[in-house]
């Protein structure tokens, strides 16, 4: 029986359908979770999809944090539940303090919709274990105006030390991008960080869109491995296994 994976639907979510579709392709039973709902309907993992949760005019992700479903998600995350935030979902997780850091406006102050390459820093996590290799460039789209990852230096150092940097922007050849490398790191993220883990290793956020790169007809299926990792980990968790990343403190 396929594992149930939830996708939160805020009124302004616009990648919810894409994400449900990608989960379906990955063999999960996709479950839409309405933002007003205070429960998670017994799902084994939750994805916060891309979009503009409540319009996000003020600051991306800020209002969503106060929604009933986010209280449930926070509680779920607290006892080790798997949560993945994609794009706006990442912004919501950061605003809610479920992952470290903040997402500032892209350096050049323009919305950016284009392909980038990211590479996983580690494969021993519920979100990356099905990927072929660490450091291998994965091509997928970004589509955001506020994706510049920011945290103060001490926080960044701690993230590196604790191996909480999950994805970085890299060149097509796989070299880590610099902070001013417009081409490989277009939003100017500090230390080229494209995705992070929480301290427990069970909550992750990333700016690029793996769900839009999960079928070759769409130009890349490099994102499928991330979705599949989550689905497998959810199945494992549902079967009573603990889904926390090995090595994360």
């Amino acid at each position, binding site marked *: 029986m396929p594992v149930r994976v939830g996708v939160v639907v805020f009124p*302004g979510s616009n990648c919810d359908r894409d994400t449900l579709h990608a989960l379906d392709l990955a063999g999960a039973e996709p479950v839409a979770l309405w933002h007003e709902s205070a429960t998670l309907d017994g799902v084994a993992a939750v994805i916060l999809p891309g979009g503009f949760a409540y*319009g996000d005019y003020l600051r991306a992700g800020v209002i969503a944090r106060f929604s009933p479903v986010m209280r449930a998600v926070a509680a779920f995350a607290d006892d080790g539940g798997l949560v993945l935030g994609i794009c706006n979902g990442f912004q919501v997780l950061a605003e809610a303090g479920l992952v470290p850091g903040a997402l500032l406006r892209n350096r050049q102050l323009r919305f950016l919709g284009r392909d980038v390459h990211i590479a996983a820093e580690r494969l021993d996590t519920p979100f990356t274990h099905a990927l072929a290799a660490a450091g291998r460039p994965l091509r997928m789209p970004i589509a955001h105006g506020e994706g510049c990852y920011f945290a103060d230096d001490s926080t960044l150092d701690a993230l590196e030390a604790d191996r909480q940097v999950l994805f970085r922007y890299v060149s097509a050849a796989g070299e880590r991008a610099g902070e001013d490398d417009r081409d490989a790191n277009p939003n100017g993220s500090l230390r080229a960080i494209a995705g992070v883990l929480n301290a427990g290793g069970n909550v992750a956020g990333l700016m690029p869109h793996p769900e839009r790169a999960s079928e070759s007809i769409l*130009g890349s299926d490099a994102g499928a491995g991330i979705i599949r990792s989550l689905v497998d980990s959810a199945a494992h968790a549902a079967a009573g296994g603990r889904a926390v990343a090995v090595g994360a403190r």
Partner: protein
Amino acid sequence: MPALGIDPLHRRLGLTDDELRAIHERLGGREPNDLELAMFSVMWSEHCSYKSSKPLLRTLPTAGDGVVAGPGENAGVISLGDGLAVAFKIESHNHPSAVEPYQGAATGVGGILRDIFTMGARPIAVLDALRFGDPGDVHTRHLVDGVVRGVGGYGNCVGIPTVGGELVFDPSYQGNPLVNVMAIGLLDERRLTLAAAPGPGNLVVLFGSTTGRDGIGGASVLASATFTHDDPLKRPSVQVGDPFAEKLLIEASLELIDRGLVEGLQDLGAGGITCATSETADRAGTGIAVDLDAIPRREPDMEPFEVMISESQERMCAIVRPDRWEAVREVCERWGLPVAVIGRVTDDGDITVERDATELARVPAASLTSDAIVHERLGRAPEHRRNAPAPGVPLSPSDRLPERGMDPGAVLLVLVGSPNLASRRAVFEQYDSTVGADTVVGPGHGAAVLRIKGTTKAIVASTDGNQAVSAIDPYAGAAMSVAEATRNVSITGARPLGVTNCLNYGDPTRPEAFWQLSEGVRGLGDACRALGVPVTGGNVSLYNESPAGSIAPTPEIGVVGLLDDVNALVGPAFAADGDTIVLVGTATPGLSGSAYAALAGTAAEDGLPSLDLAREAAVQAFIREAIGRGLVASAQDVAGGGLAVALAECAMWGGRGAAVRVPTAMSPAVELFGESPSRIVVTVTPRFVPALVLLARQHGVPVETLGSVGGDRLVIQLVGSGATGASEERGSTVADELDVPMTALRHAWDNGLTRALGWED
């Protein structure tokens, strides 16, 4: 012109004395009161009434295979089989964008999206066709920046991918930019919903944003009077778009339709509540009684006329059976949308406006819409027809541009890097082109392709408008626009299903401008008939004039096609080294209206290349069949910049050079840079060449083998009679061989636009 104070109200509202008389007739001889007059003024504006263009539009071919809804509805709808249908429509937001580029463009996107989901279709794509003046000009740069941010700011937030469009710079748009937006939606045919108000006793429900003073007079004044920048009287209170509200509106509307809760649905655009109520009532032969105080307001003490004609964005009007009102209310409230019963359907055929039991206005619904005034305008061709490109383009070679006689390689580099031909990446990178996870081909390389989940099918779409040729010959310009838009769809292997169009022209009361419009519509109709595609809808934008003059006539054509097997899709990029390059079709003389002419100026003897519609149809039928048979590796049509630029694009996009020899009967400039239509650059695996040639013969289409793909340079040799002597005789001294490194082409193409706009930093 008399001072405003003493000018009678109807004139201040943009109505002529004749029109006032016509209103008297519609009201059985009675004087309209001010509220009624305001309602007429909006509904009889050019924008809402099509009073100048209606007689012309009637001549367009609208019947075709699978047409489910055509002109007259909010959007055209064509069946795709499997119970699916596609809805599509293009609309202009030129004047609002000239006033406030960000909000003008944003609300333009919002408006056309509403036309799509009003029909019961979920929007799946947006294409934006933009036209501006000199890219080096500070004000133009301000407009481009604002319009592009506005299109993205709205489309990205509602989550509809912007997958294509156009960006054209032409001096004639300096004072009057064009912002045309096309939207495409998918629907289950059984969900098709029409904008009618049947069933007296049914409730009229308004949902979405509250009503404020936005765009009061926008439709009647802004859209139907020449726009001059600093005339505060003609400046509307700017409409601000709220894409989040639109997102809620989409979801709520589609849920209402899905659950069969509405009898009819109409978006609110120009003319606001007046337009929505009169159009829906007229279509159903009913009337509507509006209860003014029931309309949720955003601002205190609004005048009745302000409420009735307000263009506040993100509002919808539903016709609902009383027993379903509670369910409708629940849906809207769940989506966080204000909703109210603002009136009821009546059987008297009138639109009435009531406030606590007193009747403020009573007007026959038909008199505001189907029976609105129609003007038979006078059209006259200009005395001497200009045989030159669009106004403002140099008639003789100008120093900052490549001159005739320049080395053709240098000319090619300038063309490839010119504002109209260089990569548009800097613009479309600001759009989300992949949300929805259906985008197979996004902006950048020809027509857009969107797969249809759960099928092997894909929608293919393109917009094209040829203002340069239209400025010289509006009939030819419109026909060529249709030819190019359909060709762009055909070369992917898809079958063009239908055409939507946005007619951007000047002041119809000027005989030359009206002649341009009528010639444009004639060319549009003839081309659509010859190519077998119905016109399913569109939009007319007139009075596109600034103190500097009129725009070049701009018939913007949107085409939607169907690809039965998305895996058979063919793209423009050279696919493999060693493939044979074949030119389908033959060049005809004439450089007028070409990008080359715009840069180098036109010589006296230049005319327009000719378009043979039968040949165009044959070429498109041939390429579709060749692709269907799997004979074609890549296909790109010859358009802006001519054969040389087409080859350069295929090469750059494929990351491979090419060496070709072009048999030349005419001037090298014509052979290399001429833009005569009905030509396609095709690449084929060598062993398929004979089959392709045979198929071409069967279709009566000439084909010529030019050379092969490979290397890191583009080499074009001209051979034959026109190659040497002929060119000098013709006054052209373009030399006969062109040899450019791909790196140089790439550099020119990549950076041309950002350099022109001063965006590079």
